[in-house]
């Protein structure tokens, strides 16, 4: 099994197109960091503009606000929305790309079961997703910590602001990246499933993105009927739950409780729903593939 996984990883990481995603993330993170380094004050002013009517912020507070943790939070909020495309590029290509190249039939005439083959393909896509996220973490978190330094993280919520002590931030990022990995694995599983039905990778990639766009629109719409029926079950609703790790509990006096998470059960529920999606997508993909006639 390990040998098969190594082969799948070799196929992914020897392919030049794989590095387009890494290049894209590097470029985006660098551009955000550059903009904030050159003109971070404007960004902070914009960020606080909604709250300036209720609160008054000192210059010292504002200067502390712009730090590596906040920059990473800003990058994650924007870049994680775009990452499904980068994940779908590889996962959607995993079976359909092999069919298109004509290598699928050469692989399936080897003494490897189709289930084994599919599991290894999916695991390789997951490893790629984790590698992409790790690269992003290195650049966005550790890069920003180096460039901007560290300080308390201030996160805006509709109900106000959460200020998390610098010493209480890093573990939240580690878990948030872990959660993001599960969220993106859901996308990989969806693209992987669609890949089984196609003989050209463009189809599954476009189909995956179309589903994400439709689900995201449904998740974002404020229509009461959908709020209680469809929304709680859409995977897109739960993909952004990583932000919950940065919402903290506070005492009655308004003091942030270190190490707390405001609504951990909701995050765990989202996690379970995503894991269910992954299981259903992968199980269906394997089931369909086991019965499929390979005519490519």
């Amino acid at each position: 099994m390990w040998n098969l996984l190594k082969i799948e990883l070799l196929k992914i990481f020897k392919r030049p197109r794989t590095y387009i995603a890494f290049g894209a993330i590097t470029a985006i993170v660098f551009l955000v960091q550059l903009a904030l380094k050159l003109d971070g004050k404007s960004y902070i002013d914009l960020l606080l503009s909604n709250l300036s009517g209720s609160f008054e912020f000192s210059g010292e507070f504002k200067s502390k606000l712009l730090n590596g943790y906040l920059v990473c939070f800003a990058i994650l909020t924007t870049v994680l929305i775009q990452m499904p495309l980068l994940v779908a590029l590889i996962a959607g290509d995993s079976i359909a790309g092999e069919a298109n190249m004509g290598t699928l039939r050469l692989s399936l005439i080897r003494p490897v079961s189709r289930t084994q083959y599919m599991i290894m393909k999916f695991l390789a896509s997951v490893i790629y997703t984790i590698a992409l996220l790790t690269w992003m973490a290195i650049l966005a978190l550790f890069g920003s910590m180096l460039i901007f330094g560290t300080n308390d993280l201030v996160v805006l919520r509709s109900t106000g602001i959460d200020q998390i002590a610098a010493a209480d931030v890093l573990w939240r990022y580690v878990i948030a990246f872990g959660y993001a990995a599960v969220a993106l694995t859901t996308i990989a599983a969806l693209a992987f499933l669609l890949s089984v039905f196609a003989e050209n990778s463009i189809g599954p990639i476009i189909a995956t993105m179309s589903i994400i766009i439709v689900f995201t629109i449904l998740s974002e719409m404020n229509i009461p009927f959908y709020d209680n029926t469809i929304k709680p079950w859409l995977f897109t609703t739960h993909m952004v739950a990583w932000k919950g790790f940065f919402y903290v509990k506070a005492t009655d006096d308004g003091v942030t409780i270190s190490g707390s998470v405001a609504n951990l059960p909701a995050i765990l529920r989202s996690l379970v729903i995503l894991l269910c999606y992954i299981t259903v997508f992968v199980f269906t993909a394997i089931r369909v593939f086991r019965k499929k006639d390979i005519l490519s």
Partner: protein
Amino acid sequence: MDSIISVKNLVKDFREVRAVHDLSFEVGEGKVYGFLGQNGAGKSTTIRMLLTLVEPTAGEIKIFNMDLKKHRKEILRQVGAVIERPDLYKYLTGMENLRIFATMSGIKISEKKLMEELDRVGLAMRAHSKVKTYSQGMKQRLGIATALVHDPKLIILDEPTNGLDPQGIADIRNLILHLSNDLFKTIFISSHLLSEMELIADSMLIIDKGKKVVEGNVKELFDPAETIVQLKTTDNNGAYEKIKKSELKKFLHDRNPECIMLKLHRDEVPALVKELVQMDIGVMYLDSRHSLEDYFLSLTSGQQHVEPFKN
């Protein structure tokens, strides 16, 4: 002799289309078995069923006396195959491609052994070049190397000479003969070129529209007594009348507006030519070929010139 492949009443339907009809055949150990038919005859579908890529609608396939469905892994461990075009990972080198397929075949193989395999197909010098820089013939040979890398007992090749130049075709032919004669491999090879099969196969099966048409030993199928001579003259009607009244009457086989067809032993062809000249028949064109070839051509051209070949 033991059967390496035994196929019984194989059927494959793609929705309403029946691609393979009740096909049965046996392939003996150590033989080169030619599987012939025009494009769309059902060759590739049959091969894909032999390799578990396509699920049969009905019928039984046994390889090495084991049921293919029940013993898939065990069987495929001893089978090497190239199906249609030798599509490989173009962004990887020949060596990397070979290593991938060797690993997938469940064998541990050294770099030295991989190089020997590449050398066997004449690719050692280009082992570390990316496959996208290979010619069609080189890709085909690398494809065959991937089929041989785990030293299989049975080799299945689907149209291995497709798209190759004459030298490439000769290279593949020599390789197949080497595998059969020197390494005693059983080879199941499909083609739409009867002349190629005649040169390398011990037995052959011709299928048309998914049905078996002819099966047998190549030497028997290409019996020299079954030679068909196609004759075009300056006056076909006049020539036909003259032949009908002569000793050559017994050779008359068929006629159409373009030519007269005579059936005779291959050794009698020179005498026929001499006789035609003596009869003052203006011969414009004379072509002799085996009746099986003539029949096969009628299949591939979609026209029935002669009666179906009966072995």
